């Protein structure tokens, strides 16, 4: 078990004893990865934040059920994914557009949170925003399990085995999901990937 894993397990053991400072530490550490996964799954900033909050509430409530044998992040992302799936099911039953939804093309898109040490010129920034939007849209169009596999692989230091645990499928199925997802992304983004427009801007 890695040091990070041990640290998370220690924190969870403290949470089990009612230590809110330990819980706060876990929330601080995982809030952004959890939010990224949820936001890229349901594409609504307000609802994503509510769901992320629910994820951590569930972690706190179910802390006694946590066993050190399980990696904390695997457990956490399983909860996050289950809540996302519930939300997707709820939306399919009540297909109403949220009034609070922040659409990707709206003016106050999450770019305000984009922390990047590189500096872009205005045109580079525009291109970067456009390309980011394209890839987000392509991700959005992927089947849920392919998208989650790719995001978990990107977001967290989760192994294939751990991702397969979150997705509740076999290791080979997980690898296949990753491959198929990436192939679809490459197909959809081919014009951009081929043109080299997406090359990392020089600092």
């Amino acid at each position, binding site marked *: 078990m890695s040091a990070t894993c041990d640290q998370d397990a220690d924190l969870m053991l403290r949470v089990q004893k009612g230590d*809110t400072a330990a*819980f*706060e530490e876990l*929330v*601080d550490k995982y*809030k*952004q990865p959890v*939010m*990224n996964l*949820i*936001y*890229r799954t349901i594409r609504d*900033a307000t609802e*994503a*934040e509510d769901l*992320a*909050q629910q994820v*951590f*509430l569930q972690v*706190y*409530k179910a802390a006694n059920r946590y066993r050190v044998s399980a990696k904390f992040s695997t457990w956490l992302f399983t909860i996050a994914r289950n809540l996302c799936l519930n939300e997707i099911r709820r939306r399919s039953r009540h297909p109403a557009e949220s009034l609070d939804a*922040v659409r990707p093309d709206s003016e106050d898109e*999450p*770019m*305000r*949170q*984009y*922390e*990047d040490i590189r500096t872009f010129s205005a045109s580079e920034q525009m291109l970067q925003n456009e*390309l*980011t939007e394209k*890839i*987000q849209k392509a991700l959005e169009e992927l089947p849920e399990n392919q998208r989650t596999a*790719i995001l978990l*692989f*990107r977001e967290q230091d989760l192994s294939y085995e751990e991702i397969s645990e979150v997705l509740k499928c076999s290791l080979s199925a997980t690898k296949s999901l*990753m491959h198929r997802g*990436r192939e679809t*992304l*490459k197909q959809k*983004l*081919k014009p951009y*990937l*081929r043109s*080299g427009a*997406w*090359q*990392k801007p020089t600092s």
Partner: protein
Amino acid sequence: MNQLDYNKLREIAWRQKLTAQQEAEIKAYLANCPEARPDWEEERILTQSLAQLPDAPLAFNFTAQVLQAVKRQEAEASPAAIVKWWQRLRSLGWGYRSALAAVVLGAGVLSYQQYLLALSREELAVSIATVSRVAALPRVTGLRDFDTIQHLDDVVAVIDTKLLAALQ
């Protein structure tokens, strides 16, 4: 390096920067298989693009909100909350209180009836089980000559004694 090794390195590159040696291996492979170059380039740029995706927007006080929500939930489940409910109940008017009492009483009667029903069903099941056990016994007609057959040995013994005496 063969296709299999190339695929392995491609997967490694999805997550981490390749070492100088791995880069050299890829370079050599692409020099031998130029048709794989476009795929490699696409893979590389896609990986880079995914890594560059901006973080989702998150309220600056997200952690504080979560902790508040936890406190709220704990407060709702605490004894103080029960006291609060009791006080709220006491503040209700007579009409509401009577209605509430009637509902509680009704629910009690209903559950008692359900209990009696379950009890009678249980007794019925026991009776059926007993009857099925009795049904498994041999028929009465089959046992009609049971006593005669049972005493047949004694009768034969008596006759034999008389026969022996006569023969002597």
